[in-house]
């Protein structure tokens, strides 16, 4: 095998990404439920809040597992491809800012979470570029194409998030529409990235010296 460490890394990225998809879905459901709690019906509210607490717990557990899998994956894979180092670096930066964000609120918290979002974006971009480099060396057009598609999705999701943040100042009523659109694109983006990782795994398995 030509890139054993990269393969090990990608093998860890796949379950991590599946967990991220589950986290996205769960978070979306939780947000919908929280926005529809009827606080005047205390009995129903108590039951719902207990269920939401379980949901939050699962989201946090899955997020931590996914983060650890990715971190270990980047650490191993960087030995075969340098670009994975940048993903590792931005993963650590993102985690530092998440921890910091837990103890802040208001505008400062928004800034901290914003930095975390950008860091997460860079983690994925550099991971895709790293695998793209390997695919280019192996001349695997399919993986390269999937990588480009995944990057296009990332750009679109980022663009939609920026437009949402701007346009809802002027037209607050479209916030819900943009949130749903953002969630749908997020899911498609995850699907594109997952498809890219699965193709990359196959490519790396077949890559011989």
């Amino acid at each position, binding site marked *: 095998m030509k890139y054993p460490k990269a393969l090990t890394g990608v093998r860890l990225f796949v379950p991590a990404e599946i967990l991220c998809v589950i986290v996205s879905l769960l978070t979306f459901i939780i947000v919908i439920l929280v926005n529809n709690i009827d*606080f*005047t019906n205390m009995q129903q509210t108590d039951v719902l809040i207990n269920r939401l607490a379980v949901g939050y717990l699962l989201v946090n557990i899955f997020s931590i597992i996914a983060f650890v899998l990715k971190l270990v994956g980047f650490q191993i894979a960087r030995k075969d491809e340098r670009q994975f180092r940048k993903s590792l670096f931005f993963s650590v930066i993102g985690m530092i800012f998440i921890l910091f964000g837990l*103890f*802040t*609120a*208001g*505008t*400062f*918290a928004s*800034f901290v979470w*914003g*930095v975390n979002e*950008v860091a997460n974006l*860079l983690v994925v*971009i550099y991971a895709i*570029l790293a695998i*793209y*480099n390997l695919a*280019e060396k192996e001349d695997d057009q399919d993986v390269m194409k999937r990588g*480009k598609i995944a*990057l296009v999705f990332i750009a679109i999701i980022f663009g939609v998030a920026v437009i949402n943040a701007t346009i809802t*100042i*002027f037209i*607050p009523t479209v916030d819900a529409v943009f949130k749903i659109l953002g969630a749908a694109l997020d899911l498609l983006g995850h699907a594109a990235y997952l498809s890219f990782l699965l193709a990359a795994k196959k490519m790396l398995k077949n890559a011989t010296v």
Partner: protein
Amino acid sequence: MRFQKKVTRTVKVSVFLLIIMASCLGLQQYVLRNVDHNSLRVEGFYQETPGSLDAVFIGASDMYTSFIPGRAYEKYGFTSYLLASESITSDGVLTAVKEVVRTQNPQLVVVEANAFLYSDTKNDQNQAYIHKFFDNLPFSLNKLDYIQKNVPVDDRWEYIFPLIKYHGLWTEYPERFYMMASDLTLDMRGYNYLKGFRTTAQVFKSKTPSLNEQIYTEHDTLPLDPKLETQLRELMDYAKQNDVNLVFVRAPHYVTKSTYDRVKRSNQMAHIVNEEGFSYYTFESDARDIGIDDQHDFYNEEHMNVYGALKFTDYVAERFVNVEDLKPGFLTDEQKEGWKEVSKTSNQLYRYCDDMMTKGNGRGAQEDVVTLFMLDNYSDAPIERK
């Protein structure tokens, strides 16, 4: 390799631009900004959980020095906030009401009459007073609407990006440091302790005689400035169209000969407001019932000190609960704990000011790091009125 280089270059340029933008926003938000008690008050309002306030009090300094939200919660259970700014303009009041509707939608919106009682529109054109409120509002259509209507074209960008106006403030450090620290700690904490209340620990002693006894029987009126009356009517129309439960109040003042005309304009405003179906509480004429002592309860002609504010809060809160049917809304356990802390801090502030006034050390008391630090030395038990 070309594709990777293109992507990497795009990423690097984008991140660089983001860093520049974040730096400018950071400087504008925390460092190169005219932070004062108005900033802490207005910012604190937007930190309140949407829909968590039962009442919002809007107005100028008469408002934020007169009513103590922590006291009202402790005694009557309803939550409130003082979305008030120094010498707020008449159109600023309308913007404030719109912001309240946009973010909170409380049971009751209370507007102090001050902005409509000036003899002319000089206050409305005062850029300093406009900045004091609007610099601290987050960007919204309401803010943009006000800027477009009231600010000269050449000055508009400095309202949208205050950094343009305040970039020179770096020369005023380190003196400004404690207010910057107050702003940062407020932001990181996520809520403010006094819900906008501010006072000065001072007992006003004046050689100018008070005419407060005379105003109880004063029924004469003077017309409002036409533009201010138009603004008042626009506010009431907005309230009707948007189903806002709006009431007007006039807080007690140390009325003298030079300010007596305002009492007559207040009477005229009461007529206008009542004709449109809104309530107008002339608490200025109720000073005797409230128990306000001219020689003890003011820190200057325009504002009550904590002694006066405590009495006024009790009186007004009871009136709103009984007459306006103001009821405590739902609060989570966490929110209740937060409001208990607000009440305790308000009690500490009262004792701190009482101590300062007893010692003759007149000073401002507000939501800043220095004052909050001093409050730790005082009891947070409820204040029992003698």
